[in-house]
């Protein structure tokens, strides 16, 4: 029995800020203090509040220490673990009240959250199967194999109203029933962990914090549709997730929870890992399967749908990591429990990766139907530096930008599509007044052009032309006609591209045109970038009343565009200036402005 547990986040965010060093230091200090038999250090998955990493929680008190440095460790061990005095200066500020310490669940960041898919992240050691089993792990698989028929499993998932968390929101139970209905000598269960949407890290956190939940759910799916082999296709850019999945699969095999004759029921199911190689399009289901087969990851036309002819031409189901993470809980707690959360057509919860211009960047899980305002202002803590909210981007390169006027829309699949965006996998990037919406649209199109596989013309050439028009506008050479042309091209691509990537690629352009047309017009007509981002539309000028003639800017300028002599106000030669802003950074008097 340990009297105290110290949980340290070992997710990618906190690992990047050296949480492993903290764990090493803790173990050394604890041993030196003679507490090795009393205090246990546990490396867990993500707690969610990545902005304040590295994070450490000490139980039984539940003290939440944020931004811990290895040099803080001796104090924590000596004061807290040895003498029982909480180290107040390291506590997460939100939890500190005048005379006592607030529970984490009462803080703004956690109060509105409801953790289903993330329930074990930051709670258990993901590298130890026994910890997963201790929190009811693999019980759902046992229940399914010993008490339920495959049809009952499918009916339960159908009744729960679970929809695919990867973006499109297709009902999971229907997908399973299609694959179950097709007879074949071999069927496959695949897990899409190719989370390529930049700014999204929900799936990574589940894999890093609770890998067994995915394995268990895949085995349940295998039983439901009659498959004996599963594949997890995971991004190679997620080394920690890959490592923990490898450990999890090995342990599950050792415990007889994967492999032959699981629970002595005669059911066989095994899982192999496949690593992606940096192609966004492989997140599309047919492209993903083509990639597992060892080819260029190009999508194929549907029909035939994967449930009929999928991986290696066999019936296949493919679900996203977060979708799977909900399955064991639905089996254990029942479809009604799950369906009681969320909105009429979108049940359960959704995990969002909050990023961009927001205070509490990190991972949050809220019931469907929560408003964007609650997420941004209450959970996310609002915009830093007193700036104003401009837009929230959901759905990554396939989604759109949601303006302030729609902040009170309850978030679910259908509402987001109605306002010109989409759920996507759950990336939620907040933008403030310093973000140029034309530049953002261009940024996403540059991404799509780069990632287009080239198989179909509307996407390969269409996105390139869109990008060129956007580039022209950001250089101040666009015309109002271009805006109309762009819109027309967007609809053409949407209607004619082969796969989901191409069909949704114009969304960032369409949604910014819809809500921020005035910014486009400012670029085209006034030749101005209101947010001050587009370099070609700005002028760097020196304010004569503030300039002291110190010559520092002239010496800094990489192209010699600043002229003037000592102690006389300098001037920028606009013809030479490349608007790099190096002079602004160096000026000590704030005399240079970019407008």
């Amino acid at each position: 029995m340990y009297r105290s547990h110290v949980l340290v986040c070992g997710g990618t965010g906190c690992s990047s800020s050296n949480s492993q060093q903290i764990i090493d230091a803790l173990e050394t200090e604890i041993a030196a203090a003679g507490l090795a038999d009393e205090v246990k250090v546990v490396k867990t998955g993500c707690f969610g509040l990545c902005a304040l990493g590295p994070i450490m929680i000490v139980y039984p008190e539940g003290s939440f220490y944020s931004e811990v440095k290895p040099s803080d460790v001796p104090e924590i061990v000596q004061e807290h673990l040895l003498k029982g005095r909480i180290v107040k200066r390291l506590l997460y500020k939100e939890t500190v009240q005048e005379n006592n310490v607030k529970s984490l669940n009462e803080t703004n960041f956690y109060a509105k959250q409801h953790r289903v898919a993330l329930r074990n992240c930051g709670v258990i050691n993901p590298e130890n199967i026994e910890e997963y089993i201790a929190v009811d792990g693999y019980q759902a698989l046992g229940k399914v194999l010993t008490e339920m028929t495959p049809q009952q499993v499918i009916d339960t998932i159908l009744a729960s109203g679970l929809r695919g968390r990867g973006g499109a929101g297709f009902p999971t139970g229907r997908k399973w029933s299609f694959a179950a209905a097709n007879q074949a000598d071999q069927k496959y269960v695949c897990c899409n962990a190719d989370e390529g949407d930049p700014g999204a890290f929900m799936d990574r956190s589940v894999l890093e914090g609770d890998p067994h939940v995915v394995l268990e759910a895949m085995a349940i799916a295998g039983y439901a549709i009659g498959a004996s082999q599963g594949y997890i296709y995971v991004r190679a850019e997620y080394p920690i997730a890959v490592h923990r999945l490898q450990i999890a699969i090995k342990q599950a095999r050792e415990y007889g929870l994967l492999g032959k004759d699981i629970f002595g029921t005669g059911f066989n199911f095994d899982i192999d890992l496949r690593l992606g190689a940096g192609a966004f399009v492989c997140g599309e289901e047919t492209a993903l399967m083509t990639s597992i087969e060892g080819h260029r990851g190009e999508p194929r036309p549907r029909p035939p749908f994967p449930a009929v002819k999928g991986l290696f031409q066999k019936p296949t189901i493919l679900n996203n990591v977060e979708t799977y993470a909900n399955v064991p809980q639905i089996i254990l707690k029942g479809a009604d429990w799950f369906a009681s959360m969320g909105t009429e057509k979108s049940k359960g919860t959704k995990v969002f990766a909050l990023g961009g211009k927001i205070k509490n960047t990190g991972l949050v899980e809220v019931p469907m139907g929560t408003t964007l305002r609650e997420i941004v202002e209450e959970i996310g803590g609002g915009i830093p530096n007193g700036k104003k909210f401009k837009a929230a981007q959901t759905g990554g390169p396939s989604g759109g930008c949601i303006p302030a006027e729609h902040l009170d829309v309850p978030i679910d699949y259908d509402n987001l599509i109605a306002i010109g965006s989409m759920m996507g996998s759950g990336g939620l990037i907040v933008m403030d007044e310093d973000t140029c919406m034309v530049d953002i649209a261009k940024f996403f199109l540059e991404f799509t052009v780069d990632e287009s596989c080239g198989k179909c013309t509307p996407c390969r050439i269409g996105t390139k032309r869109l990008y060129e028009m956007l580039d022209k506008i950001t250089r101040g050479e666009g015309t109002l006609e271009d805006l109309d042309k762009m819109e027309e091209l967007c609809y053409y691509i949407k209607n004619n591209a082969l796969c989901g990537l191409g069909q949704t690629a114009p969304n960032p352009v369409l949604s910014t045109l819809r809500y921020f047309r005035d910014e486009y017009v400012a670029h085209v007509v006034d030749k101005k970038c209101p947010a001050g981002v587009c370099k070609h539309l700005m002028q760097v000028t020196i304010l004569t009343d503030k300039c002291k003639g110190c010559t520092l800017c002239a010496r800094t300028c990489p192209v010699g565009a600043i002229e003037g002599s000592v102690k006389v106000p300098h001037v920028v030669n606009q013809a030479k200036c490349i608007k790099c802003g190096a002079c602004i950074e160096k000026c000590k008097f704030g005399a240079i402005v970019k407008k």
Partner: protein
Amino acid sequence: MSSKKAGVLFQDTPEQKQKLEEIIASHKGQPGALMPVLQQAQDVYGYLPYEVQATIAEGLDIPLEEVYGVVTFYAQFSLYPKGQYKISVCLGTACYVKGSGDIYDKLQQKLGIKGGECTPDGKFSLDACRCIGACGLAPVMTVNDEVYGKLLPDDIDDILAKYGV
């Protein structure tokens, strides 16, 4: 597509050669073996020159053009050697919104190379990458496996100095 064109002569050690043979042998006959073999081969050689692709094509009995097609399709595979220090700047949305574009520009300027290139001495190569998932630390760059977060353009000089610039 011969690697001679890239100005780098390919030469492998007997150990590398033997490792490659082992990798091919352990995957031969498996469905979808090509991707894992290429990934492991790149771990051995650091890149996938023509000669390595040809060995794999022969070993797995897959046409060379198909191997080449796969190698050039995925961003992770490289036909050319990378630098001793591989620098990647995240240009994912969360980092981009927080100014990673300026970090990337500054690195190109400091190293005198463009994205995707390697310095002539073979010391540094620079790439843009799409989201390593450390969005809480945006903007982020990596040098080999080391992650640097919450960056400002002014931090670049100190970081490069660590690697001897």
